[in-house]
């Protein structure tokens, strides 16, 4: 009898689980632990004390290519990792969907493009993506050394697929990291992301 009661309560709760809860800026960023392209297990907790940038990516999405073909993303990655900030590229495409790659493929893409992430995380099950409510590629998040989410949203303020636009756009990630370095609050800490949908 008691089982029926608890079961019915569980059923009732599943009737209206919100689609997914986007983590709030100012709250703790969801922890995760997954395999990277070299076969190592990478956890958010490994980088305690350091600022971490999360970049959801899909190498075939035209919006991602806009930033890579123009070398915009690579230079941003080099600048930030050069300052001791950790950059994690996360691929949440499900197997068989666009953007899904194996570890070796991911490594060769990194080499070919000259990108400089600290690690490329393979999230084929989409668990990390769902935990962060990652909707588009690219979708950017910045987490501080204490594990608090400081920024979530678009990479810049010009939603388009034209590589030429990266020069005229305001890059939210650069601006946010500059504010952090200056010890200031991030003015625009939650923006609307743009891009292809993450292929869960």
């Amino acid at each position, binding site marked *: 009898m008691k089982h029926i009661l608890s079961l019915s309560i569980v059923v*009732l709760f599943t009737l*209206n689980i919100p689609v997914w809860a986007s983590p709030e800026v100012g709250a703790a960023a969801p922890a995760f632990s997954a395999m990277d392209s070299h076969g190592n297990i990478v956890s958010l907790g490994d980088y305690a004390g350091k600022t971490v940038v999360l970049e959801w990516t899909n190498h075939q999405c035209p919006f991602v290519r806009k930033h890579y073909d123009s070398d915009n993303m690579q230079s941003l990655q080099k600048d930030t990792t050069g300052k001791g900030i950790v950059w994690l590229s996360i691929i949440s495409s499900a197997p068989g969907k*666009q953007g899904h790659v194996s570890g070796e493929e991911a490594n060769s893409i990194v080499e070919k493009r000259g990108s400089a992430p600290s690690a490329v995380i393979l999230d084929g099950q989409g668990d990390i993506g769902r935990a962060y409510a990652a909707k588009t590629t690219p979708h950017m998040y910045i987490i501080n050394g204490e594990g608090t989410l400081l920024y979530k949203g678009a990479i810049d303020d010009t939603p388009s697929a034209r590589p030429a636009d990266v020069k005229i756009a305001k890059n939210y990630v650069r601006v946010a990291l500059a504010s952090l370095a200056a010890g200031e609050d991030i003015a625009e800490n939650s923006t609307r992301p743009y891009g292809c949908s993450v292929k869960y």
Partner: protein
Amino acid sequence: MIRLWTGILLALIMFWAGAARAQDFGATHTKVTLQAEGISIAPGKPFLMALHMVPEAGWHTYWQNPGDSGLSTHIEWTLPDGFKAGEIRYPTPHKVPFGPLMNYGYGTANSLLVEITPPADLAQGTVIPIGATVNWLVCDDEICVPEDARFSLELAVASGAANGDYTILFADAKEALPIAAPWPVSYVREGGRFTLSLDLPAGAALVKEAWFYPHADGVILYAAKQTLSREGDRLLLSMDAGENLQGGLVTGVLSLKVDGSPHEQGFLISAGKGVVVQDMGFLLALGFAFLGGLILNLMPCVFPVLSLKALSLAKSGGDERHARQSGIYYTLGVLLSFGAIAAVLLGLRAAGAELGWGYQLQTPWVVALLALVIFTVGLNLMGLFEFGGRFVGIGDHLTHGQGRLPALATGVLAAVVATPCTAPFMATALGYAFTQSAPVAAMIFLTLGFGLALPFLLIAMVPSLRGWLPRPGAWMESFRQFLAFPMFFTALWLIWVVGIQRGLNGAVLVMGACGLIAFAVWAGRKWRIVGAGLLLMAFYSLTYLEEPQAAPEYEDFSVEKVAEFRAKGDGVFVYFTASWCITCKVNEHIALENDRVQAVFQDQDIRILRGDWTNRDGRITRELARHGRSGVPLYIFYPKGGGDAMILPQILTPDIVIGILTGEGK
């Protein structure tokens, strides 16, 4: 060597690929054309341009708010000085779901309209060049491709007459645009939920489906379910709220599908912040639900169950463990039942039904069933029967049962008989519950159940309370019988409700079912099978609770009217009936109220006159005598254009009547 050539080849490919990735994306997956509505432009008169987009099958383009991902279409106009281009007017969008994400767009051909206003000072005959660079995103389930196209066309300045080639295109485009909503709309954002409220009278056409497409980001969660419900004269559409709701007006497109119409209609709405409907917090609602549950114990439906159970506990003496067990299992029974009711109602709400508490009482057969159950409990209290045999575990629960199952069953029974009753505080709490998410609503239901169960739970758990109960004695039997009467009166009230819903016939049907149950109970004491059979009949008879059919439109009979209509040459159908005449009622139900017969009455423009002989009426007696009859029923048809009166048989069928009315039958 091979490495070198591969390298060069790769470099060349990347170079070419790079070149192709420049501004011009081409348009492989969408056929796009740009047309002007007129064959010419009139000075100063705004004219429409249509960007007609046809995505490849399985692909889609996006609305002005693309949703979780995607990109809307952009047009950059190259116009001569003085020309102004307006914003793109999008047709009503559709949902394009993708896994856990939701986009808004178009999977089929659609036209985006733009109004261009030319300056007033244009010389006739001037040729105006119009250029447009269009960028859009087209995606299928797997990939996205940004595409673009450039257009240039020329229009002369003349009368601005419409271009006949594009009449249909522009007509379709305008029809697909959302129209301004004719009713006021407001919104409420509370507890992570965003609710739109439309002042739409309950009598308006039944809205079956609705979806809200906001213009701005952050108003709602795009992929969240949108629940439609009705509260009196207001239609409510409720969904998970987004993160960035700026105050002020919320605009967007509300797409409604109405019963009987195959297409949705989009409405442009501009919703202001509304008054919070239930100005009640969750805790207050819980408090009200709890109080309501407590008070329910005093209602005539529940009080008998509660008091008898309490007294049986007192009678059973001092076994603490059994008493506590009784209390716990009774509470469990109540909670389970309320949980089940909540699950059913919330399930119905999730399926889109508009409901509130009392939904169950809006369905006549549920009311009838409750009436039967309560009547049966009344009979049991009267002492007319005890549950025996197979039911000894479940039965005997009101006076003798002390085990776990009887206690549980009593709990379930208490919950069931409580459903037709409402207590103060209960209504507000439940009203609040129905606008909330499922877990919240379930909590409120369970709290109501807990309030209902608490008095007995306390009596069962706290021995000193039992000391307050009166000492058992012979008076208990009379008390038990006395308690049957609140039950009977409750059943009577429910029968009255059925009468309102299904007319006198419905109410009598339920009373008949009660009679059958009483009969079954008496017969079942000796002959179980007969009892069971009669019981089945009683419940089966409820299936005859149908919609009352419309009676044919008639006027009251009078000899003068017959003469008047006949003089005009109309066909006249006269019938005499009485409420106590069963043959008459059966004939009317089967033949006269039949749809086909009614259709013939209307087609042939036949006048219907009805003589009601339920009470004494000399004129009708005389008319009956004139036709050689002394009683009812009597059916006479005077054909169109004069002609002899035809008397129909005593027992009618639709075919007989139609035959006589159309002159084709016997």
